């Protein structure tokens, strides 16, 4: 089972072809269709475009409906960046104390956190809360909801990582006169770098791809996110498959870049998160 055995070349070739066909052909289809003219794309076939219209399609998608796509990209970026930055700090602080102080209270809190990981959110009552606070259909409202939904997962990841940081370090800092705030922000937080990278990358992908929360809590075109515009695009440009697939391609690019840079952190974060959960 280990790498010491000689690699089986025919089996390898077969597997590579299998994985390529199953997992790469759909992406190739997206790229090819995004480069076709409207008539050709309507054939829905998997073929090389006879005439590349890639740049024209890109231009058409970006300009569609008064540059809605640009607005959506800005909105999604703001949503993702703000939510992730806030959740990282809040979850790290909470995870630190929850891991270091073992009491009946923290154990109860951990149980509640687990419920956040398992239970589906109650959507309409959440709208009710947002409305009471005057935050329904606003970006801050959606950001707060995304933070709440991401909190459980992040706190658990931080707790697991902080368990590996020796407590003597805290004690040394405390003896040197560090208060809780400077202990956390000056001593502990810098040590959390690896897990922070993981949490940031994983949550960025989650929130960027989130469709359901914006659909419920931030409807309307003026503050659409990329997933919502992509979804609406389908009904508005039903016949222009080339433009639809150009849109899909554009929405796929940010996760692809994240993946190429941070593959290791993403995979380890998701494996760790799932094993903890």
């Amino acid at each position, binding site marked *: 089972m280990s790498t010491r055995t000689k690699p*089986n*070349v025919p*089996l*390898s070739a077969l597997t590579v072809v299998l994985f390529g066909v199953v997992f790469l052909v759909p992406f190739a289809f997206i790229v090819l269709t995004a480069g076709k003219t409207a008539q050709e794309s309507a054939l829905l076939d998997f073929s090389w475009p006879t005439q590349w219209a890639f740049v024209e399609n890109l231009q058409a998608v970006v300009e569609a409906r008064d540059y809605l796509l640009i607005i959506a990209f800005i909105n999604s970026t703001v949503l993702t960046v703000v939510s992730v930055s806030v959740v990282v700090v809040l979850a790290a602080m909470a995870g630190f104390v929850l891991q*270091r102080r073992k009491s009946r209270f923290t154990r109860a809190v951990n149980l509640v956190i687990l419920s956040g990981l398992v239970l589906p959110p109650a959507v309409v009552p959440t709208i009710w809360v947002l409305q009471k606070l005057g935050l329904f259909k606003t970006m801050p409202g959606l950001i707060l909801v995304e933070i709440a939904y991401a909190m459980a997962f992040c706190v658990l990841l931080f707790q697991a990582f902080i368990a590996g940081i020796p407590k003597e370090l805290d004690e040394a800092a*405390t003896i040197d006169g560090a208060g809780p705030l400077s202990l956390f922000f000056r001593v502990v937080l810098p040590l959390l770098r690896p897990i922070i990278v993981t949490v940031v990358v994983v949550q960025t992908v989650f929130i960027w*791809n989130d469709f359901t929360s914006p659909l419920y809590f931030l409807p309307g075109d003026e503050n659409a996110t990329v997933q919502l515009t992509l979804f609406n695009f389908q009904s508005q440009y039903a016949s222009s498959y080339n433009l639809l697939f150009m849109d899909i391609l554009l929405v796929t690019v940010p996760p692809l870049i994240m993946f190429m840079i941070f593959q290791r952190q993403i995979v380890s974060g998701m494996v760790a998160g*799932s094993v903890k959960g």
Partner: protein
Amino acid sequence: MTTVTDAVTEAPATTVPEPARRKSPYPYWFILPGGVVFAVFFLVPSVMAFWFSLTRWTLFDQEFIGLDNYVQFFREPALASGLWHTLVYAVTTSGLKVVLGMALAVLLTGPILGRGFMRSVAFFPVLVSTIGVGLTFQILMHPTRGLINQALDLIGITGPAWLVDPDWALLSVAFVDVWQGVGLALVIYMAGILSIPGEYFEAAKMDGAGAWHRFRHITLPLARPATVSVILLSLIGGLRKFDLIWAMTKGGPGFTSDVMASVIYKQYQAGFYGLSTAGNVVLFLLVILIALPLFWFFNRKEDA
């Protein structure tokens, strides 16, 4: 714990017999900011849902109507069938992810070239927009011109009409879910299998155990934690799935691929907030009913 050092440093100075009451370096208020956001936007709505599900509700005023929403939910076949579809969807996706995830992981941990490449290729769909995946496969699953049925034609199989066939719609979406999610199951299994000491396999080989025996008696039992993770993760994810189904079929044709999450959204759109919330509570209970026994069962067996 930390009070131990506090006691050592401060004990001589204080008259209090107990460990000195200096402030802990881990103050509880650190939990507060995150806790408040979590409580206000997750816990409060979850608890309130039980009350709202008993009302006729327009967001502005509510009228208590007892269990009427639940009665209506289970009486109306279009709604109640969502419950069954949710179960079918969750069990199908979860089962396939376990079987395929493990099979592919065994393949990729074997004597094979290009392992890293294939792992990346299979994992990437996990990160792609679910809406994008749904819309792409909607085209690939076109009954006549779609790539999938064209390919099946080549080998002499007439593929089903997938998303437009009432008997296939739900399963078709489940297949796409598996396509997108099997990469996560694969990396979880690979991590699990690679942590099994290689000597076990070598020893078994020397004793003359065949490949199947080694799988059955070493890989399968020792990769158990991975199996537990994949099952729980995919079941919980499958029970609440919404975006993929909404992007591909919107619950159609008819109501044949409607699941709890899409029923909740449709009732909300139609303005039946109480009914929608009742659906939400039913989904809660379903998740609890399935997840709790599994947690309990898996934890128990691990202790034994």
